[in-house]
């Protein structure tokens, strides 16, 4: 039985492990362990000094006991002693123990750090590596504080061995992930990027991981990595399967490194340099081509490694989302995998196609696979694969295939695994609403959902169907008829009783003309379910009954009898009892008119984002595809011009978009005076904390340009970088305004502690009131959140408020500050007037303080139509035939503020030869003339 093994044998350890394995019961095991612990403790405490070997053996035993799941509260000191041993195997065990069992005993940490420091300075590469492994394994803040500054030096030192560089790179990565603030950026970063060129493939492999992590926070500092990564990748992809010797894995050259390089490239947009881009596209095409070649080996390792690169390549193609040709090829490739005999490939193809479905270039190509995906839903034996199929159907759904997809999901729901039913219900409800052309179809679909999977239909879903029926009068009669029929089933789900009760209470009258659904029959049908229902449903039904009293006077006595019965009036449940008493009383004392008023049909619900979608997002986390889809769609539509307002946010699902709300601005309660919550003291607070991480970032580069663009328009993208997109939609009327700010997370990682703050400077604050609510501090990857700002202009102002955003992305703090384009001209109301009136007023404003004039060079081509559009966009009326010179433009309007109204006249005289303009503004207030002139001059 005994066999010789490699390495340093510890016979005592082997015996102990054998003993444990031979224990017949848990009790016996514990007994044996306790015996061993007592033995070790006595050895450690004994008078006789232990030699290194014994110490190593006992520490190793303790480690084994710990890994079995038992607590260990001693031995740390002996392990620390081993660290300073000269024998590699003893040191190694010491480090292993520390890595697994480190505790934050400060005295011990100091000793450990000391030992590590000695090993790092030892110039013995094996010792250095052990020390680096230990730091990487522990990765604590204390270790970061002690070593984060040294490791970059070791990493780029010319005399470091390759293996040391590899360990140093990944050690630094771990420390950076744990405490990014401790790793100082500096001159070494440039040298790290050049490790991509290193001769040693292992060094490159380790360095790419580090660079990928660092460049996410400092994309500009690491930009040079793009071309280096592309050329490295290109060399690997084009190498023969034997060129890379030991880095070839089952005939695939350097698969791990390839995947990492492709991941690194996904941190950046497509290369700007045409040559680099060309080389990269060539690589991507080569990978796609290779997928079609016959395999070089039948081993699964060969195809896995090859396909790992292929899937990462497809991810990069999707990330770029700019090469229609590659996107379609990727889609076709995945299409082949959908029917592959390997379950793993089918799973990944479904997953990857989900993201392809949201690209406008490949959406149609994905749709062609609908039958295969539906088939997968029916035939896959593994629930996780079926789940992927559901996700893909959801992602590929659009108006053209919604009826088919919804029908298939409904039929799958009948047999679906319990674990995914609720999610399917939510998805069906969302798709049915989003793509309903005919709302009868929507009502049927939701009732089917309740019939098939009533238990999984959450409140959000049945609330939503009621909201929609109430808001759309073309479907109310149909809904009443359908729920009435559905309620005929002998056993129907309680959720159906709720929906049925609510809808009949509102719209039962629409079907009461049919003797088969007369008021009494409706009532009896509902009441036959009453006793089987829970308290909340009964409460809802009582409300339906009192609504019936109003709708159908003829059933009033029957309903009063029911309300009067002991089981209602004396019901043990307070809510039910109260409703019964109050409704009974109401039905007796109130006149028909009062009843009709109190029990009037529900008014339409205010339109808002579907709560179902919110729920799905919460359930699914970052991988919701709809968000991407909508963000993308919004980006591609000119928000200002399109005939149909683009869905401004994920609310595409809720029937009208928030813009419907905007139109109701006049009815909105005026923003109350007083310091607005988020802007009031903002300026001050920022000063106080200006040295902390939450300090306001300097204004984002380029935001100045975007700001100017918003002077004459209200919607569009205000700011965009690698991580974040900020879009605006706003509307102003008189001195009030409302602005929707959309924050889009462009990455696939969560933003944490996401806090946008509106800052009005001390000068601005008395003139402008801004009110808003905080947004959810977590923004999922690919998701968009919106924030509404209510704006009130108190008096005229010059500065613009600043929108400052802080969030955490992958462990690093991000700051973005942009000027929010709320400018004085937004409160302009155009005034039409005849030539005579205009000049009369013009003369009245002839005081030199009232006029401001600016002569400036044209920055844009001088186009009459564009100029007209800009003046109208600016907010004033464009007065035709006022100026005797037809080449000039004349405008008039009133600036509304809370305290006063200011009449404004303007005249713009272009000089085509000189490519100059002269702009004259006359208002009753100098500051207003000045500001308006500034704002408008910048537009031409």
């Amino acid at each position, binding site marked *: 039985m*005994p*066999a*010789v*093994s*490699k*390495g*340093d*044998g*510890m*016979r005592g350890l*082997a015996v102990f*492990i054998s003993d444990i394995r031979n224990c017949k019961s848990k009790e016996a095991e514990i007994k044996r362990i306790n015996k061993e612990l007592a033995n070790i403790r006595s050895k450690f405490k004994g008078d006789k000094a232990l030699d290194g070997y014994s110490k190593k053996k006992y520490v*190793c035993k303790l*480690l*084994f006991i710990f*890994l079995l*799941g038992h607590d260990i509260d001693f031995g740390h000191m002996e392990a620390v002693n081993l660290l300073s041993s000269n*024998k*590699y*195997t003893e040191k*190694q*065990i010491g480090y*292993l123990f520390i890595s697994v069992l480190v505790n934050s005993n400060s005295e011990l940490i100091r000793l450990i750090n000391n030992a590590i420091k000695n090993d790092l300075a030892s110039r013995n590469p*094996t010792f250095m*590596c052990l020390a*680096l492994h230990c730091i*990487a*394994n522990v990765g604590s803040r204390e270790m970061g504080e002690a070593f984060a500054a040294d490791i970059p030096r070791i990493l780029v030192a010319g005399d470091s061995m390759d293996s040391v560089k*590899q*360990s140093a790179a*990944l050690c630094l990565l*771990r420390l950076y992930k*744990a405490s990014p603030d401790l790793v100082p950026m500096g001159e070494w970063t440039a040298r790290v990027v050049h490790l991509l060129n290193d001769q040693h*493939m*292992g060094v490159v*492999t*380790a360095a790419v*991981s580090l660079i990928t992590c660092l460049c996410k926070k400092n994309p500009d500092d690491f930009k040079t990595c793009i071309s280096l990564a592309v050329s490295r990748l290109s060399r690997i992809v084009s190498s023969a399967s034997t060129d890379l010797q*030991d880095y070839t*894995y089952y005939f695939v050259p*350097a*698969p*791990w490194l390839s*995947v*990492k390089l492709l991941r690194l490239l*996904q941190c950046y947009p497509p290369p700007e340099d045409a040559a680099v881009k060309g080389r990269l596209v060539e690589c991507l095409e080569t990978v796609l081509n290779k997928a079609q070649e016959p395999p070089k080996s039948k081993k699964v*390792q060969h195809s*896995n490694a090859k396909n*790992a690169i292929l*899937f990462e390549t497809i991810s990069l193609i999707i990330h770029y989302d700019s090469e229609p040709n590659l996107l379609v090829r990727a889609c076709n490739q995945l299409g082949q995998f959908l029917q592959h005999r390997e*379950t*793993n490939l089918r*799973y*990944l193809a479904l997953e990857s196609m989900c993201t392809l479905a949201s690209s406008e270039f490949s959406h149609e190509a994905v749709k062609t696979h609908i039958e295969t995906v539906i088939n997968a839903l029916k035939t896959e*034996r*593994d629930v*996780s694969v079926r*789940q992927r199929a559901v996700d893909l159907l959801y992602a590929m759904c659009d108006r053209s295939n919604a009826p088919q997809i919804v029908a298939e999901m409904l039929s799958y729901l009948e047999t679906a695994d319990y674990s995914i039913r609720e999610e399917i219900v939510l998805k069906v409800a969302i798709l049915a609403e989003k793509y309903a052309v005919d709302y009868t179809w929507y009502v049927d679909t939701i009732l089917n959902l309740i019939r098939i999977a009533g238990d999984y239909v959450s409140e959000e879903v049945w609330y939503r169907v009621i909201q929609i029926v109430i808001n759309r009068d073309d479907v109310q009669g149909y809904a009443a008829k359908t729920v009435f029929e559905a309620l005929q089933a002998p056993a129907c789900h309680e959720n159906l009783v709720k929906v049925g009760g609510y809808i009949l209470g509102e719209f039962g009258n629409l079907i009461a003309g049919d003797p088969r659904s007369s008021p009494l029959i409706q009532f009896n049908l509902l009441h036959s379910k009453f006793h089987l229902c829970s308290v909340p449903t009964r409460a809802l039904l009582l409300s339906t009954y009192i609504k019936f009293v109003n709708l159908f006077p003829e059933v009033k006595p029957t309903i009063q009898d029911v309300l009067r019965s002991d089981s209602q009036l004396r019901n043990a449940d307070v809510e039910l009892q109260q409703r019964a008493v109050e409704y009974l009383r109401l039905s007796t004392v109130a006149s028909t008119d009062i009843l009709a008023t109190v029990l009037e049909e529900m008014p339409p619900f205010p339109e808002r984002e579907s709560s179902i979608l919110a729920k799905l997002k919460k359930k699914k986390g*970052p991988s919701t595809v709809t968000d991407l889809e909508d963000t993308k769609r919004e980006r591609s539509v000119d928000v200002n011009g399109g005939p149909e307002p683009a869905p401004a946010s994920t609310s595409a699902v809720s029937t009208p978009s928030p813009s419907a709300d905007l139109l109701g601005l006049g009815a909105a309660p005026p923003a109350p005076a007083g310091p607005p919550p988020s802007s009031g003291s903002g300026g001050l607070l920022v000063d106080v904390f200006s040295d902390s991480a939450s300090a306001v970032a300097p204004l984002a580069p380029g935001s100045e340009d975007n700001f100017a663009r918003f002077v004459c328009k209200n919607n569009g993208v205000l700011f965009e970088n690698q991580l974040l997109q900020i879009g605006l939609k706003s509307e102003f009327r008189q001195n009030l305004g409302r602005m929707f700010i959309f924050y889009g997370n462009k990455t*696939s990682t969560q933003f944490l502690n996401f806090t946008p703050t509106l800052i009005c400077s001390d000068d601005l604050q008395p003139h402008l009131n801004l009110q808003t609510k905080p947004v959810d501090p977590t923004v999922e990857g690919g998701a968009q959140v919106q924030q509404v700002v209510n704006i009130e202009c108190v008096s005229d102002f010059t500065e613009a408020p600043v929108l400052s955003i802080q969030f955490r992305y992958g462990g690093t703090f991000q700051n973005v500050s942009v000027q929010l384009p709320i400018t004085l001209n937004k409160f302009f109301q155009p005034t039409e007037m005849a030539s005579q009136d205009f000049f009369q007023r013009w003369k009245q404003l002839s005081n030199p303080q009232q006029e401001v004039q600016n002569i400036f060079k044209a920055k844009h081509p001088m186009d009459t139509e564009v100029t007209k559009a800009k003046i109208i966009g600016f907010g004033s009326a464009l007065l035709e035939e006022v100026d005797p010179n037809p080449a000039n433009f004349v405008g008039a309007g009133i600036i509304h503020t809370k305290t006063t109204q200011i009449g404004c006249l303007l005249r713009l005289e272009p000089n085509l030869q000189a490519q100059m303009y002269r702009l004259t503004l006359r208002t009753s207030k100098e500051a207003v003339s000045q500001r308006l002139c500034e704002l408008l001059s910048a537009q031409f």
Partner: protein
Amino acid sequence: MQFMLLFSRQGKLRLQKWYVPLSDKEKKKITRELVQTVLARKPKMCSFLEWRDLKIVYKRYASLYFCCAIEDQDNELITLEIIHRYVELLDKYFGSVCELDIIFNFEKAYFILDEFLLGGEVQETSKKNVLKAIEQADLLQEVRYFPRCVTPFSF
């Protein structure tokens, strides 16, 4: 990669490597949940599953399950081959490795893993280079006794 677990068909944990800071309690909870989930799966099922907000990649070799947790953007197939490469490294070092080798030489299994993966990232993929690092330690060889197993991992 966030962590790697090796456990037997009976659900006994043989090796655990955590690349994110977690409390012992949390580690035990995760282990319990995952071992249960993975053992409940049938042989022909796919090697990937969603679990919490992570992706689990697992593969069975003889009596032992190798199970890795990776993040949303990580590549499943390459992770499957990380597992395989680790098994190959163990196999080459022990010579037809089996579960008992990992039980009796657990410290070696950890050392080999540290040479291959560090901080959850692949450090060195060359078999030769990884084993060279380990074997340096074995230069001062001592003799070690331990029982040999009967069922080596099959590839």
